[in-house]
């Protein structure tokens, strides 16, 4: 059975009269990677939280498999949708395996003891993210790239269908960025649906099947295939500055560059 998360006409404000999202729509489908992009303050992260069920829209609706997301209990929702926030600062240090086992919470018994199945699922998540060798390491001692893969393992241990990731590559160097994105593509081939917020338009262009472009006015500027959305005119409209798009030097994807206000001669 396919899994679908549909947001319709979603509006949201943290404070009265300070609109963060205005009639935003998106469909997150299993087996595809959706990038949510847009300028700072356009409401991308808020939109992701609404899709994850952590915030409730003031107007509009979010449906998971034709049922209102709000009608799901927290654990029930978490068995379909996993959410990974941008930054994690643990109060105390756990081993990598313990971190991954935390992901079993939506499936665990009232007293939270781990079953043999929980351990098996957690071990599989470690293998899926190539972090098996780290399982006895202290989570606090990991490098940024390792940390991100372990966190991915911990949300995979939830056995969700959809992964909602807030800037999963923002703290990583260029090599680890591509590595994580390749891992996400791989998971997508395994049937997971992925939505990620990112500032890196070129990563979105190269690794996403669909791109949702939010503008500074908190509305959707465009939604579609990367080559249709990541165009000079649309990006310039969304970001309010001149943005030029060419062809990626060696991948079949658009290549985005911002230009200086007075033009940089390129």
């Amino acid at each position, binding site marked *: 059975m396919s899994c679908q998360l549909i947001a319709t006409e979603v509006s949201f404000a943290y404070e009265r009269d300070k609109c963060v999202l205005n009639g935003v729509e998106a469909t997150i489908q299993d087996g595809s990677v959706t990038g949510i992009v847009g300028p700072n303050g356009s409401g991308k992260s808020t939109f992701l939280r609404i899709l994850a069920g952590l915030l409730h829209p003031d107007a509009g609706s979010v449906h998971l498999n034709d049922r209102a997301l709000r009608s799901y209990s*927290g654990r029930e929702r978490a068995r379909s949708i996993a959410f990974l926030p941008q930054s994690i600062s643990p109060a105390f*240090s756990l081993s990598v395996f313990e971190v991954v086992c935390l992901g079993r919470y939506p499936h665990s018994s009232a*007293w939270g003891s781990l079953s043999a199945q929980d351990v098996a699922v957690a071990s599989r998540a470690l293998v899926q993210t190539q972090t098996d060798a780290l399982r006895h390491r202290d989570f*606090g001692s990991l490098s940024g790239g390792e940390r991100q893969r372990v966190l991915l393992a911990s949300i995979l241990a*939830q056995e969700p269908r959809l992964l909602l990731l807030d800037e999963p590559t923002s703290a990583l160097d260029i090599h680890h960025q591509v590595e994580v994105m390749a891992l996400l593509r791989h998971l997508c081939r395994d049937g997971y649906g992925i939505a990620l917020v990112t500032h890196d338009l070129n990563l979105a262009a190269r690794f996403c099947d669909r791109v949702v472009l939010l503008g500074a006015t908190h509305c959707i500027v465009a939604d579609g295939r990367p080559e249709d959305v990541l165009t000079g005119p649309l990006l310039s409209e969304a970001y309010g500055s001149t943005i030029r798009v060419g062809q990626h030097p060696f991948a079949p994807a658009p290549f985005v560059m911002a230009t200086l206000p007075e033009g940089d001669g390129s």
Partner: protein
Amino acid sequence: MRPRMLGAVLLLCASVAMGFASLVIGTENIELGTVVQEWRAGRPVADSPALSVLFNQRLPRTLAALLGGAGLALAGGVFQALLRNPLATPYTLGIASAGAFGAWIAFILSDAGWFVSGVLGIPSVQVFAFLFAGADVLLVYMLAARKEHSSPAVLLLAGVTMGMLANSGIMLTRYLAAPDRLVAMDRWLMGGVDVLGYRPVWTLTLGVAPCALVLLAQAGKLDQFGFSGELAAGRGVNIKWLQILTFSVGSLMTAIIVSVIGPVGFIGLIVPHAVRALTGPRHYLLLALSLVAGGGFLCFCDIIARKILPGETPIGIVTTLIGGPFFLYLLMRRKFTDWDA
């Protein structure tokens, strides 16, 4: 996993041993043989000095120490997770100071001839201590409450400020009180499990047992919250509800304990840390063993207070005298990497 379980079992045995020791050791040691003999012979408690001391003095006192210590240690472990802060204790949010302030007001009022008998047979000092501690908790939460969930930092700041206000209240009452009353007031501040009869034990049992069960049941959620509040929310933990529940139940339990045995310090800080060194940061084992170790530790301190130190040394002094150096030793020996905060 194995050494952790072994340590847990050893800790349990040590606490049970402390409980038994607390029954027989005292100003007059009780011979277990005599107790069994007289019990078998069916002698009435009133006719047997050994049985009388055991049932009328040692047992209620030991139970009070076990329950009070257990509750304070558990509350400490919960508050450290709730506030995401290794320095947190059950008293961090001002409960002890507010309770003490309430107790002092009760002293002054009873001197003025009011509420001498207390309410429903509960001494007025206890009633006032509880009411003031409860009011402190409510105020702190209302100050820190936000739409989605409360920031631990705001809770902490509000609690510390309320504690300071209560302390200045104590200073004011001290200043206004008759000098000869200061001794009794100070004595209350130092805490004590020298309870009379079983009524305080019942108060403690009814206060600690249900609260402890509720708090233990939150262990898995506290693990999630300690790792990351947002990640936990994504996994279906209702963070706001978790905060309200652990905060109010932990505070209620602490307020009841403080009202009965006084603001006995240090247990809520040191016991969870010492246990964490043994069990690691997962809360199921940590909270359950803090409960056990807290009770055992307060019994141990009580034995020291009445047998080794002169007279009836207030237990609050002993907990710090013993706990302080031990805690410093733990700090020196271990790299405190458990806390990244």
